[in-house]
C-alpha cells in the first residue's frame, strides 16, 4: 500500500464556538498536487497553519513520512522539510532578495546562532541562492531590496524560499492570488515540475489553475471535508456545486 508523505488524522481546531477544522482526515502522496478548495472561512488556511506548526491543533494528529509531528514547533517542522508560502506575502522586506535566500539556506542547514562567520561571503550559499532565483526567474533582481519588488515578484520569491528548504512537502496558500496571466502560467508550469520533487498541498481560489494542476481536489466547508476526488468527480458533485463552485463550471 502506498504510504502518504503527509497524513492528517482527525484534526480539529476551534476558535470559540467556531469550528475551523472539524475531524479532518487527509492524505498527500508522492508526485501529487492536492488542491484544497472551499469558500472563504472554510478552514483551509487554518489547516495549513496547523500542518506547518504555526497553530496548535485542539485534537488529532499530523504525520510526516509516518513521524508524528503534532507537537513539533514550526521551526522544527520547517527543518524536517515542510516548506510553506503565506496567504499574504511574508518575506523580509528590508533585505535584498538574495539575503532572504541566504537566511533561508541558513535556517535549513542550522548554525544560525553562529556569531562569527560572514554569511555574505559564503560562496556556496550565494551560488545556491542564484540557482533558486533562476528557477523563479528572479536572478536579475537578486540585489534589489524586497520592498521594491512587485507583488508577483514577492510571490515568486516566496516559492524560491520554500524550495530552498529541500522540501519533503510544499504548502502553498493562494500562490496565484494577485498574479497576472503570465506569472500565473509560470507558476503552473513550475508547480507541475516541482511535484516530482515534493508533493504540494495547494490552496487556491483560481479554479482554472486548480483544474490545470491538481491531481486530487478536496473541498472544505465550515471546517469539514465535504468531498475529495479528481476534477471530474468534484465538478459533478452536487454538494460542491451548491456550496462553492455554483454556476462557475
Amino acid at each position, binding site marked *: 500500500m502506498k504510504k502518504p508523505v503527509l497524513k492528517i488524522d482527525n484534526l480539529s481546531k476551534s476558535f470559540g464556538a467556531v469550528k475551523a477544522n472539524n475531524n479532518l482526515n487527509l492524505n498527500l502522496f508522492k508526485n501529487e498536487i492536492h488542491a484544497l478548495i472551499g469558500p472563504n472561512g472554510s478552514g483551509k488556511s487554518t489547516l495549513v497553519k496547523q500542518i*506547518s*506548526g*504555526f497553530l496548535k491543533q485542539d485534537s488529532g494528529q499530523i504525520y510526516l513520512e509516518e513521524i508524528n509531528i503534532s507537537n513539533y*514547533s*514550526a*521551526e*522544527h517542522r*520547517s*527543518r524536517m522539510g515542510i*516548506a*510553506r508560502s*503565506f496567504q499574504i506575502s*511574508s*518575506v*523580509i*522586506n*528590508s*533585505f*535584498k532578495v538574495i*539575503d532572504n535566500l*541566504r*537566511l*533561508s539556506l*541558513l*535556517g*535549513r542547514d*542550522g*548554525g*544560525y*546562532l*553562529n*556569531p*562569527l*562567520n*560572514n*554569511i*555574505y561571503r559564503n560562496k556556496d550559499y550565494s551560488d545556491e541562492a542564484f540557482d533558486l532565483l533562476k528557477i523563479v526567474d528572479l536572478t536579475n533582481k537578486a540585489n534589489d*531590496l524586497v*520592498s521594491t519588488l512587485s507583488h508577483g515578484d514577492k510571490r515568486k520569491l516566496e516559492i524560491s*524560499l520554500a524550495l*530552498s*528548504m529541500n522540501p519533503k512537502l510544499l504548502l502553498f496558500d493562494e500562490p496565484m492570488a494577485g498574479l497576472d496571466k503570465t506569472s500565473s502560467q509560470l507558476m503552473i508550469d513550475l508547480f507541475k515540475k516541482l511535484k516530482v520533487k515534493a508533493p504540494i498541498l495547494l490552496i487556491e481560489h483560481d479554479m482554472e489553475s486548480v483544474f490545470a494542476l491538481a491531481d486530487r481536489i478536496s473541498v472544505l466547508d465550515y471546517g469539514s471535508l465535504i468531498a475529495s476526488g479528481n476534477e471530474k468527480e468534484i465538478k459533478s458533485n452536487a454538494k460542491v456545486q451548491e456550496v462553492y463552485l455554483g454556476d462557475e463550471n
Partner: protein
Amino acid sequence: MMSEKKLNFLILIFLFFLPLFSILLNDIYITTLFSKIVILAIAGIGLNLILGYGGMVSFGHAAFFGLGGYVTGILAFHFNNYEPIQILVFEFEGTNQLLLIWIFTLIFSSILALFIGYFSLRTSGVYFIMITLAFAQMLYYFSISWPTYGGEDGLSLSLRNQIPFFNTMDPITFFYICYVWLIITIIFVKFILNSPLGISLKASKENEDRVRSVGINPKKVKLISFIISGAITGLAGSLYADLNRFVSPTILSWQMSGEIMILVILGGMFRLYGPILGAFFYIILEQFLGGITENWQFWLGFIILLEVLYAKAGLISFLIKDKYDEKTSS
C-alpha cells in the same frame, strides 16, 4: 556629506586624537570626560545590538551596566581589605587585576542577561519594556539595601584597578584602554551583524513568521543576542566604575537605562557607529547646556523630541550621503 565608511573612519580617528585637547588645554578633567564618552559609546553599541538591530526595547540595561560596575567594585574592595568574598561555603580572593576583573564581568553579565532574557523574551512590546525595567529596578533596590557594599552611599575604589605595564591612574592611559575596548567592541559587533546570528536577528525583528518558516527559532536568536548585548554593557559598566573609582546604586537606576537608550536614539539606532556619535553629543550637550542652565535636561529633551520627529535615523543621518532608516538597514 560623506560616505558612511569615511565617516566611521573619521569618528575613530577623531576619538583617537581626543586626548590631545586635554594636553593642549592642560585640563585633565576633559580626558575623564572623553573616557566617559567612549565608555557610554560601548554601552550604547551593546544596547543597539538588540534595540536597533533586534527591535528589543530594553529599558533595563542599567542592570548589566551596574552589575559590571559592582563586580569591579566588589573585587577591588575585597582585594584592598584582604577579606575573601564568601559565597555559601566557598571563599574567593578579591583582585585588582583588570584582565581578571573584565573576565569576571563578562561572565556575570552574561549569566544575568541569560536569566533576564530568558524571562523577558517570553513577552514583547510594552511588556518587554516593563519586565526589563522591573529586573533592573530589583537590582537597584537590592544594591541600596546591601550595607556590606555601601548601600545607598556606594562603594569607593581607592585606586584604579591595574593592568601590568600600564599606569591606569594616568587619565590618558585609561582613555586609551577604553578606546581599545571600543575598537574591540566595534569589530566584534560588526562580525556579529554579518554573521548567521546577525542576519537572523535582523530578520527576526521584522518578521518572526518568515524566520520560523525557514527553520530558525527567533527566541533563541534574540536570547543569544541579548546575552551578548548584556555582556558588552556590563563591560562598559566595569570601565565606568574604574573611571570614577566609585560605584553606587545610581548606575543601576532606570535613569541610567534611559541615558544609554537616549544616546543610542540620538546617534542613530540603525548603524553601528550611531551610539558613538550619540555618546559624544550627549556628553557634550550635557556639559555645554549644563554650563548655561540648570534645566539642561529640558533642552536635551527638546533636542531629542525634534530628532525623533524629524530625523528618526539619528544624528548620523545628517552626516552621510546615503539616507537610510530601519527599512533599509540590512
